[in-house]
């Protein structure tokens, strides 16, 4: 059965999927136009689904393949050498999708899951807020009951794909008199509903890979609640677990401009590799990069052997962010003043990657949060002395507000 699946997967990929290459999704979208990229990805996802390789572990009645994690692992192994054009579905399938499989009602699953898998509908995830940051549970977006429905107001930020998404999974506060974790609910929101405004968010690199999303009296219908009312934090924990797994097993599809081989070639081209210090820095970059790859490999081997990585996934994320910062410093040292100004695409890519590097130590949980997770859940250290877990949310100071 498994061998058969592997053979099928291998054959289909060879016939249908493009191989990995260097490059940058952002740049590709800018040069080809986003609409074209999305149309192509929708078509590919439909083909993937039709061939039986989408939703491998999801139930058949919701459009999945009804197979086991063994087939999922085989698929990951076989597809590792390809660059599947399914990026716009990544968030929806791995986060809201998996969460709906776990917590959704039968009606929700029948309505939404098949169209996710077939590429007809794209989803996003709406957790972060300007005032919440690392303290996700202090979110201020509200959903107020109005009969069977809810009325949604507030602002989300750092939303990837909001500009082309059809639906989103959103956290909103439904009871501000309860302590912060206990008054939150999760909903499905139609991103085309009246009152939803999506604005691109420009970041330090000058690109806009994220959005801000504003909700102004957006009505959520009766069936929009995911899980139970005021139990949204539990649903969020489920979704964040799926997020960690997704990010941990994602791998990178392109060669980074801050990779050892890229910087070595650039340094050699500038005649800088005769410098003993440059040689040592490049060697150290190789060692550190290699260790990050090897640790990810070790975690995958452990997972396949039945030992789940748990919070050690945070070690991988932290190590990746630290490596980005280190690589940026190496780039500055080995390229010297040639990095201060340039007119080649190679140096521009290095420069953009250095400017983007701090983003990875912030997005998806800051390095500070990762260190807390590692300290508490891997090493068993005591939690931070917290004073806000029992305080009613409406008596809590949040973000940069002087008073609530």
């Amino acid at each position: 059965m498994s061998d058969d699946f592997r053979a099928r997967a291998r054959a289909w990929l060879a016939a249908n999927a493009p191989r990995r290459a260097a490059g940058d999704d952002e740049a590709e979208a800018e040069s080809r136009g986003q609409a074209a990229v999305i149309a192509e990805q929708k078509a590919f996802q439909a083909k993937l689904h039709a061939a039986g390789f989408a939703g491998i572990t999801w139930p058949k009645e919701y459009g999945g393949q009804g197979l086991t994690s063994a087939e999922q692992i085989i698929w990951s192994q076989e597809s590792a050498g390809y660059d599947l054009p399914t990026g716009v579905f990544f968030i929806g399938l791995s986060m809201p999708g998996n969460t709906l499989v776990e917590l959704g009602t039968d009606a929700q699953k029948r309505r939404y899951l098949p169209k996710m898998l077939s590429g007809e509908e794209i989803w996003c995830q709406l957790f972060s807020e300007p005032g919440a940051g690392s303290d996700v549970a202090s979110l201020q977006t509200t959903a107020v009951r109005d009969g069977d429905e809810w009325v949604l107001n507030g602002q989300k930020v750092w939303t990837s794909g909001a500009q082309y998404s059809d639906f989103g999974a959103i956290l909103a506060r439904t009871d501000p008199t309860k302590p912060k974790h206990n008054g939150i609910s999760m909903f499905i929101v139609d991103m085309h509903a009246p009152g939803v405004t999506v604005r691109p968010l420009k970041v330090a690199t000058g690109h806009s890979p994220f959005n801000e999303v504003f909700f102004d009296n957006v009505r959520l219908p009766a069936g929009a609640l995911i899980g139970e009312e005021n139990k949204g934090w539990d649903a969020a924990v489920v979704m964040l677990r799926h997020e960690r797994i997704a990010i941990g097993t994602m791998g990178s599809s392109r060669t980074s401009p801050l990779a050892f081989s890229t910087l070595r070639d650039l340094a050699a081209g500038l005649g800088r590799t005769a410098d003993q210090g440059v040689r040592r820095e490049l060697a150290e970059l190789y060692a550190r990069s290699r260790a990050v790859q090897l640790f990810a490999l070790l975690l995958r081997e452990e997972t396949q052997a039945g030992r789940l990585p748990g919070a050690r996934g945070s070690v991988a994320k932290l190590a990746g962010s630290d490596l980005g910062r280190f690589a940026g410093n190496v780039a500055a040292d080995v390229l010297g003043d040639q990095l201060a100004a340039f007119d080649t695409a190679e140096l521009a890519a290095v420069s953009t990657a250095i400017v983007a590097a701090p983003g990875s130590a912030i997005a998806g949980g800051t390095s500070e949060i990762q260190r807390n997770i590692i300290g508490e859940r891997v090493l068993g250290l005591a939690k931070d002395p917290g004073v806000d877990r029992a305080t009613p949310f409406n008596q809590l100071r949040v973000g940069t507000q002087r008073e609530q």
Partner: protein
Amino acid sequence: MTLILTDEEVALADSVRKFVADRSPLTSLRQIIASGEPFDAGVWKQMTAQLGLAGLTIPESYGGAGAGYSALSVALTELGAGLVASPLLGCLLAAEAVLRLGDDTAKQELLPKIAAGELIVTLAVASSAGGQVTASGAGDGTVLTGTVSPVLNGAEADVLLVPADGTDGKAIYLVQGGADGLARTRLTAVDHSRSLARITLAGTPARALAGDAAAALAAAADLANLALAAESAGAMKACLDMTSGYARIRVAFGQPIGAFQAVKHRLADMEKSFELGYAALRDAARAADEKPGDFPVAASVARVLLASAYAEAAVDTVQLHGGIGFTWEHDAHLYYKNGLSNKVLLGGPGEQLDRLADALGI
């Protein structure tokens, strides 16, 4: 020789700080980015004509203020804090080279106009990876061929001073901005507050300046270290203030984030690095005026410490602001890019440490 500021220096710092706040706040850097101009010509006019900043180290006999290097470093610290875009650094290095060369004609011709802000002059120097220039011919027939990149304000300069290797060894040559065979390509600079260019010379007419080129270039390199250290100190202090301020008002988990040791201790380390770098900067500034023999080492020490400390502080500024610090609308990235650029301009950390090791006789 004392490290603390004199009353005159405190007054100078105050007036430059006020000028920056009034005439060149960070919003004006954003206007410069949007316009594509290298700097605000009106601000530059005021910096020179009104504040006399380009002439602080030029003797009064050549139209400058003769105020010395400590005063200059105090002014640069404030300009650095505000990321003021201007051709000042290029002009300072060019003026220093001319002063040290001692070529009377060049001094008469260039220094008063630099001091007055009427002429943008730059020194076309870069690291060894930035190309090289050779001279041939003689007298009026002297021409230069080669490339230098990146050159401070190389695209806008009215006059460029270009070090080149000729048959008699290295000399510094004067090239007019509009000379034949001079190609100037403005490059994409990491730092939005610097205008940098590649200059390519192809049989470009040039005039050799008299004097000891090696000594003049060494003096300019020392001054560059002092200037970049001063600008970095000011900018680093701005990062420290901005981030501490945010840590006092931003609340997470029911606490101002400055209550968390991950934030508090990072800021404490930033304060420590700033204080150490600032002390080294003051020492270098005083040495330049009072103990020139100690200046090369002292300027190297200040640059090495502050370039790294500022670059680290600027990354931490982004990090400790979290998501907002990574947005285009927030000022953190302006400092981050400036910090990166200040660290590598005219030679990165490794080259700076080599220079220091040489000076220390290791």
